[in-house]
């Protein structure tokens, strides 16, 4: 089941440059929350603070508090522990090219020391079904490399890989920006279904997409969160002039 996320006063830096300023955000469990805003406004930086991926870059730094479920992620846990509960899907599909489809999905389990064959088989199947890829790959699970799939299939493989670890939260950073419209449709459909089991935070600069998949939307600009509300409200009746300018296409 998904858990809720409470973000308080997150500030983030790349070396001396500050990229995020005092971000507060409450994400409801089992809902999808979209983050929109022009390129470079800090959406990726923010989402990477939620699974402590930001701090893996040299010189990067974060302050503030993030509570995910019962976990105070910057205090009460290690980054690796946290990331098993908070899955991530990246902008560009990044399957492990040296691994079969099966091994890609099982990677999170195997590399974390889980070695029960039968259970792994089941988890892989469930994950591939959840990501709507099962029917397309079930006959070549062990024969085919993850990298030999099409772009859209690769991204669904990456989603399955994230799901196999059985996280509570799924972070998605522009998961469709490298995909064709049909694959995009499939992934969006998927996100819609995954909400029942996971809390989803999705970055997108496609506003229609935010409208289609997310109940809540936050608008970012220059490292600040300008407005956060029900998606419908953000698009039809935003309270901030800058949000309105962005969603009506006047800039960005």
């Amino acid at each position, binding site marked *: 089941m998904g858990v809720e996320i409470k973000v308080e006063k997150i500030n983030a830096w790349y070396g001396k440059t500050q990229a995020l300023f005092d971000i507060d955000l409450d994400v409801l469990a089992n809902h999808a929350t979209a983050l929109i805003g022009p390129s470079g406004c800090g959406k990726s930086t923010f989402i990477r603070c939620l699974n402590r991926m930001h701090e893996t870059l040299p010189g990067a730094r974060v302050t503030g508090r993030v509570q995910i479920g019962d976990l105070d992620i910057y205090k009460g846990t290690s980054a*690796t*522990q946290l990331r098993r509960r908070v899955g991530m899907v*990246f902008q560009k599909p*990044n399957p*492990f090219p040296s691994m079969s489809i099966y091994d890609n999905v099982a990677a*999170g389990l195997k*590399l974390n020391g889980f070695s029960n064959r039968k259970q792994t088989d089941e988890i892989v199947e469930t994950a591939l079904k959840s990501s709507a890829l099962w029917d397309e790959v079930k006959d070549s699970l062990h024969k085919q*490399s993850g990298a030999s799939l099409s772009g859209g299939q690769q991204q669904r493989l*990456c989603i399955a890989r*994230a799901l196999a670890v059985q996280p509570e939260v799924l972070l998605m950073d522009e998961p469709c920006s490298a995909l064709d419209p049909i694959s995009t449709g499939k992934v969006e459909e998927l996100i819609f279904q995954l909400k029942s089991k996971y809390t989803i935070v999705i970055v997108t600069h496609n506003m229609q997409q935010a409208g289609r998949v997310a109940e809540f939307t936050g608008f970012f600009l220059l490292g600040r969160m300008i407005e956060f509300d029900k998606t419908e409200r953000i698009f039809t009746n935003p309270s901030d002039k800058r949000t309105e300018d962005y969603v009506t296409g006047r800039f960005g």
Partner: protein
Amino acid sequence: MPNSVRVLQISLRRRVMDRFMTALAALTVLLVLLPLGAIFAYLLYRGFGSISWAFLTQIPKPVGEAGGGMANGIVGTVLILGIASVMGVPLGIGAGIYLSEYGQNRFGDLVRFVADVMNGVPSIVIGIVAYGLVVLRQKHFSAIAGGVALAIMMVPTITRTTEQMLLLVPHALREAAYGLGVPRWRTTLSITLRTATSGVVTGIMLAFARVAGETAPLLFTAFGNQFWNLHANQPTAALSLQIFNYAISPFDEWHRQAWAGALVLIVLIVAAVSAVRIAVSRGTLAGVR
């Protein structure tokens, strides 16, 4: 000129150019392969006649007696190269991993510099170093000392190629693993290194093939041996040493055997490299380079 004709002309010129460039590339390949082929052909011509069952299974006969072979040298070479690989390969891979994953600092730069300098050190000097490190201390020559000398030669090559190959692995793959909660060390071994396997193996094979025929570093380390010896701690025969000794001898029979030994050495190296290549490509999947 109508547009379509122009397009046609351009494409004709392009086609000619394309053919020309392809031919040029093929020619350079030929130029590269020619010396290799020539050496191999000449070795076959000079050496093949002297290769016999006896040559492959017997040890040298005393001076003046006909017959005998280089079996001890073949076994010794395999032994010394085995020792060198067991020491040099893990060390080189480890250092390469350090450089690519943790070495973006002054110490890393120093290691890179030392590795590059070591690559240029003449092999005879490396032999002297191994002599000082191992032989003087143990007070006798040995396969281990020879192995140490060759390992010292292998390490810098393996280190630098491993580093380069790991750096080619996209950062996105490391992040994908981190995102699954995989610890950094595990990511390095199971994702980064595994993804770069074929390149890393190529580096190892380069280093291996380079030292496999080395003679100078073995002169006062493994030293050579006219008799059977399987003790890593005793003076040990090596094909390259035997070729050297026989080639500078005044006997025709030994000259013939030196050619045969050279041929066997080349075949052994090609066989070892091919076997590893096949083993590695067996282990990879369809759709993976």
